[in-house]
């Protein structure tokens, strides 16, 4: 598993913890990122640029800083 997938998992946990609508939360982050968060799986290769963008979008959408 790569860092990108770990970050997605961390985001999922945070969404669940906050009781947010997971589809809406992921959708908003995808709009920020320009690619679908849901299409990232454990085989998706790491990409530092995508990872940075994901963390930034997560912070903006969820209001918390995600660390991986």
């Amino acid at each position: 598993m790569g860092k990108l997938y770990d970050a997605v998992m961390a985001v999922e946990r945070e969404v669940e913890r906050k009781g947010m609508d997971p589809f809406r939360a992921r959708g908003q982050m995808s709009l920020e990122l320009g690619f679908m968060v849901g299409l990232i799986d454990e085989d998706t290769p790491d990409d530092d640029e995508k990872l940075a963008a994901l963390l930034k979008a997560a912070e903006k959408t969820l209001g918390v800083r995600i660390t991986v």
Partner: protein
Amino acid sequence: MSIRAKVSLIIVAAVVLAATGLGWYLQATFASNLEGLAERAVENASADFEAQERADIAKLDSALQVMLTRSDIGELYEAGDKQALYDYVLPMFDQLKEEHSITHWYFEREEPDSTVFLRVHNFDKDGDEVPRSTYLAAVDTKEVGAGKDLGKTAFALRVVRPWYDDEGELIGYMEFGEEIGHFFEGMHEASGDDFALVIWKGRLDRDAYADFHETRDTEDNWDDYGEFVVMDNTREDEIILDESVDLEGIPDEGIVLETVDVDDGTYARGAFPIYDNAGEQAGVVFIMHDITEVADELQQTWTTVLIGIAVLGAVLLAVILLVLNSLVFGRLDRMVATLEDVSTRLLGGDYDVEGAITASGNDEIGKFEEFFGKFLDAVAQTLKGLAPK
């Protein structure tokens, strides 16, 4: 700026423009009505003046014919005793003056002498010739000579008839006259309109005019009105006069001048030319017709209509905006909200979007909603196939 704001602005501008145009049209119509009213007032005054002239000629002629049958007066005249004739007819003249506004009574010798034997209205003056058109017409035709004659000091209506003795021999001429001012008093009383008569100075005699006013102990107004003299005026002020008008260029049917507002109301003004018996223009009659009631009524109507237009415009505007909001903008707002929500959820992995977007009507917006719903469903099914299991 949103489409809603742009469309609203265009509609507001269109309604305001239409209301302004309608208001302008109404104002122009009301102004035209007032001018028409003023034109009719001038036409009526001109016609009344002519009718008054005809009636007064008939009156003077009737009185004259009665006097011409009086052998007692004829005997005194033929005796050549001016004082005796004067003493005898003076009470009659006073009565005629009192009851019929007859202000001039002449006894004129037959031709070739053709001089004045007696002016009952001015005993001291006699022996002169009176080559006025009315007198000359009576001499030429041996019938009645009648009409408006401009003397040295005043404009008067005169009727002259040849005078025959019992044997049918011409012994002279008798003439009755009345000052035109009497016309205006009568017309003013009948119609309520005001009148002023102005005469060209060139048609009058300055010295005689000064003497005339000195004798009557009235104000000599020779220098008050440029090239003209105001002979009669039924108003106390001179608002009826308009010095800017080319008095020589006034057509026979008259003209309408500017409406004036004075303390006691709104008045239409006009003028028509006045001719002497020889057909030469001697001056102008100004008329002032009270249109206060009509002007106020029109103003009130105009104000009411304007308020009506404003209210109607506001209601129309509200209805148009409500209808537009209901048929277009409200639906667009709801459609945008739904599309944003469904699209966001789709990106978040909610692929069950079939039926999430339904057509809200069988029109342009409804067709777009139907199309986009199918498109999103197709995208959702494709993404669902790509998503990790």
